[in-house]
């Protein structure tokens, strides 16, 4: 296998004359053949023809590297930055299995009927930036869904029932994504370094509550026939002082989810209950959870502070109960209900500043 040899020693003469002079003695017939490059580095193949076998020869790569040293170093640096860091302006590679899509509901109740003021714009911008940063850091996809009041959801029909439709549509839009994280606009991810995979998806069945016995604000029946909790968790939600909270929840793409999204809204149920179901799909889901074992068996509950901590002011009837309210280092804060008499902008700015204070810039982090 003489073709696989390390490139032969080149005859090197300083101040050599013309080309013909250089090669005159030994091989004149090879003059046209570029055995040696003009930059006095060995050509990659040492004048030999290309062969597939070269690819298995380490010396081929060594010579490649010596020839393109600067390019190679630049490429390797880029690769290291891309895989191991979250440096900006570099395309990042993620070796992660479950793809996550974050659905951010913007413009809730907005539209022509209600124009946004400067503060509302600012709140929206902060919220979107926060999720964008988080998604970028972990390689998730962020999709912002417009929740402006639409005619087909207008009164007496299905006002404010877009959630299921939006999730369905997002699932079609991202056919490869597995998990979908719904976030209301008035939420803020406080600990952006937390990856959802490690936080939730690993060993999910053992870290969620499969029974409402220990925390049951709605007084739902605890033990119901035909519930098989060995089924996997397909939906992660938290309960606040008044029941399920759909301000921040996760659903997994599955047959079960497809069914749930399909049956969530039903005209016969809606006709009987729409005066009672104050919180729309939230109440509908509670009703389905209560009466239908197949829905109950795949919902896993997490404590509210896991992904939906409240600021003081929300859940005012249980203001003394610490399990609902934000403590430093909680993952996400949900300023639920701030548009009803509280100051959304003030709260958002407060928590933005707090998040910044909790994560001071490190000296060795030149970016971010």
């Amino acid at each position, binding site marked *: 296998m003489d073709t696989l040899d390390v490139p032969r020693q080149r005859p090197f003469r300083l101040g050599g004359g013309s080309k013909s002079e250089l090669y005159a003695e030994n091989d004149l017939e090879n003059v046209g053949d570029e055995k040696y490059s003009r930059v006095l580095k060995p050509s990659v193949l040492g004048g030999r023809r290309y062969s597939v076998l070269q690819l298995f020869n380490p010396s081929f790569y060594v010579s490649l590297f010596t020839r393109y040293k600067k390019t190679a170093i630049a490429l390797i640096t880029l690769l290291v930055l891309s895989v*191991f*860091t979250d440096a900006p302006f570099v395309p990042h590679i993620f070796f992660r299995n479950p793809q996550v899509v974050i659905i951010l509901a913007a413009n809730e109740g907005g539209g022509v009927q209600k124009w946004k003021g400067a503060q509302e714009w600012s709140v929206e911008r902060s919220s979107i930036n926060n999720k964008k940063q988080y998604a970028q850091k972990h390689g998730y996809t962020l999709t912002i869904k417009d929740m402006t009041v639409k005619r087909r959801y207008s009164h007496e029909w299905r006002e404010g029932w877009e959630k299921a439709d939006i999730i369905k549509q997002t699932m079609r839009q991202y056919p490869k994504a597995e998990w979908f994280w719904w976030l209301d606009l008035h939420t803020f991810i406080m*600990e952006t*370094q*937390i*990856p959802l995979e*490690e*936080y939730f998806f690993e060993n999910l069945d*053992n*870290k*969620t*509550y*499969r*029974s409402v*016995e*220990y*925390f049951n604000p709605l007084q739902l029946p*605890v*033990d*119901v*026939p*035909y*519930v*098989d*909790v*060995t089924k996997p968790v397909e939906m992660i939600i938290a309960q606040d002082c008044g029941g399920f909270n759909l301000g921040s929840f996760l659903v997994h793409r*599955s*047959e*079960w989810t*497809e*069914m749930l*999204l*399909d*049956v969530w809204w*039903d*005209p*016969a*149920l809606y006709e*009987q*209950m729409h005066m009672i179901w104050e919180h729309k799909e939230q109440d509908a889901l509670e*009703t*389905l959870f209560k*009466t*239908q*074992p*197949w*829905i109950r068996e795949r919902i896993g509950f*997490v*404590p509210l*502070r*896991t992904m939906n901590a409240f600021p003081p002011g929300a859940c005012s009837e249980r203001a003394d109960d610490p399990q609902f309210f934000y403590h430093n280092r909680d*993952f996400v804060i949900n300023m639920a209900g701030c548009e009803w008499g509280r100051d959304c902008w003030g709260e958002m700015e407060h928590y933005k500043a707090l998040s910044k204070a909790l994560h001071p810039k*490190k000296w*060795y*982090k030149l970016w971010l």
Partner: protein
Amino acid sequence: MHLGVPTKDNFRPKSNSGFNLPMGLRKYTRVRNWKRRHFAAVAVFLLLLNAITSKFLDVAFLPIFNFSKPHSFSHLTRKEALAKKQDNHGLFKKEIKVKDRLIYPSVEHAPLLRELTLNNLFKSKPDPTDMESLLYFYEDDIEDKNNEIKEKTVDDESNPLNVAKKSFKQHGRKVFNGKSPEIVLVTGIDFENFELGHLTKVVQNRVDYAQANGYGLYVRWIQEFIPLLQEYKSDKSWAKLFVMRAAIHAFPNAKYFWYLDESAFIMRNDIELKSYMLDPEVLDPIMLRDTSIVPPSGAIKTYKHVKAENVKFIITQTRTTINTDSFILVNDVYGRGLLEFWSDPLFRKYPNFPEKDASALMHILQWHPVLLSKTAIIPGRTIASLHSGTPVDDPNDLVHYIDGDLLVNFKGCAEHHTCELVLDSYWKKTHEEKK
């Protein structure tokens, strides 16, 4: 100072580093190549720095050696609550495991049960809204705080009434435990409406069919579900959904569940469902595509391109409505989801469903595309040939019974009180054939 006489120290090799190591270990530390030595020092420094930053600053310097504490919310959850998982039980928590794949009640108790009346079969308390009637409860129902629920208990085994009562109460707790059959035939029977002779014929018919084909059989008294029906004053026709749900629980590993109402009589024991209609290649050509869900001309139609292997629910139609006397369900997420959604209390108490369970089903199929896409409507004569008073001559009639069909369904016979008569005529027919 060296004066020519070597001291002990002079025999020691010259140390490269500042600190002295024993001779035995020294060979491991000696780095001949100075460049490599520098590299090692830098690497050790980086690892140390990484350990320190990740430990105390919660940021990994080198992400591959990440020693930072794991991201978890375990400090928020309570262990005892995580461990709390309910058992998968049916309507009753105590269950009886049986080996026999034919589960059916003691039909001979029907007259005794009727004599006992519901008041003796269940615990009861007066209905707060209507003082004349009683509300019935299961024994396993939630604890009775005010001692309102009374039960008349007599434990005399010699009395046949008590035997009947005991067997009635135990029947619902039976769960199959053995090598599961693939198909289970399910029927609900009503001892208040029919005489013993009639019930025996129905149950015997089911037993024969299940036995001949190796299927499981699950028969329940409709009266066992009175407490559930009573909750929303639902009609007895809703009981089939409860029977079906209990059957799925009793045979958790069976694949297909065929509900066949007591108003049907199987005529051919030699027809095996799997090759007859359940295999996708057999089902595919007989599925009615682009057919109105509400016959004859409803606006919503079944899908044109449903694949037979995706079908989870198979049902037939009569000329005017959907026929819930006979339907087949696949035991998976879609099948069970559909069944439980169909029996939702809000459907059961909805006043605008004139045909009760059939209306609810038509409503569900029309409003829920995912469920519709898993549904196949097939010609009536496959699993629900209707009995007609006048003999049918037209061989292209896909609805009415013609000799040689799998079964005959005398739907609506209860309204005319002709069930026993009609069944008798078909019963005689099969018995004459045997002779």
